[in-house]
């Protein structure tokens, strides 16, 4: 089973990188870009057939290491 994990900064946290990307896109002429949030994408191969068990494990991984709950939030897909 493969977990596709998306980690982003919380909405309440300023994203300096995203801000710079917004400015760069605007200067390229993409004037309709209002905001950009830059995050992290992680793919994990799991030796696990049970979807519920896999979900539980990925939550643990995200909570313990992959994301920092002070500044980040995460979501993931399993397939």
């Amino acid at each position, binding site marked *: 089973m493969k977990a596709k994990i998306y980690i982003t*900064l919380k909405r*309440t*946290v*300023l994203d*300096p*990188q995203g801000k*710079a990307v917004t400015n760069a896109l605007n200067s390229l002429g993409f004037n309709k870009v209002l905001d950009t949030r830059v995050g992290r994408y992680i793919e994990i191969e799991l030796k696990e057939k049970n979807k519920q068990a896999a979900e539980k494990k990925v939550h643990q991984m995200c909570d313990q*290491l*992959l994301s*920092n709950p*002070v*500044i980040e939030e995460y979501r993931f897909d399993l397939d």
Partner: protein
Amino acid sequence: MKTSKKKFGIVIFPGSNCDHDCFHAVESVMGQQTVPLWHKDSDLQGADCIILPGGFSYGDYLRTGAIARFSPIMKSVEKFAKAGGPVIGICNGFQILLEAGLLPGAMLRNTCLQFRCQYVNIRVENTDTPFTNCCQPGQVLRIPIAHGEGNYFVEESQYQKINRANQVIFRYCDEFGIPTPESNPNGSLGNIAGISNKAGNVVGLMPHPERASETILSSADGKIIFESIVSYLTK
């Protein structure tokens, strides 16, 4: 009065690069004893104080300090800290303490998106810690920084809490000791340059006192941090 040397344990992670600056400051400048602590070990070898030095542990992969915090030595450092032992994290060491949950908050990328390597002024906000007891309240120290992620962040409610509990130990300021937006090199919340835990025995700061401990290095202001630790341990 005791004259015996105090033992400073300096942790070395793969990617630490300020460990030797710390050895030099503690041993050659302060005349104290040091012991290197390898990240894979778990014995603190009877150290009186633990220093987590600066650098780029584990290449800053994932997040700064995120992987180093799981090193075997960190389990012992956490135990030592919980028992009241003095622990100081400098730069990457600060980031590791945050990731380990020994200090509140997290680091974001500098708002300027640049790696900042420069001298800054920091104001001592709390002199009642093992690391600042030789400082005057409000004393301004000129110490260098070198980091890309020193933009300290914590939720507003938590910020109020650490403010009230005097856990903000250093703030970036101008040469007169005023924390201005211009004197903030990284966008850090409340100009925070260093904080402590609630008990005050764990401190993290982004500036490098070990790089400013001799006049030949153009500032000896950082030496007072090490003097404070020795004075605390000698009491």
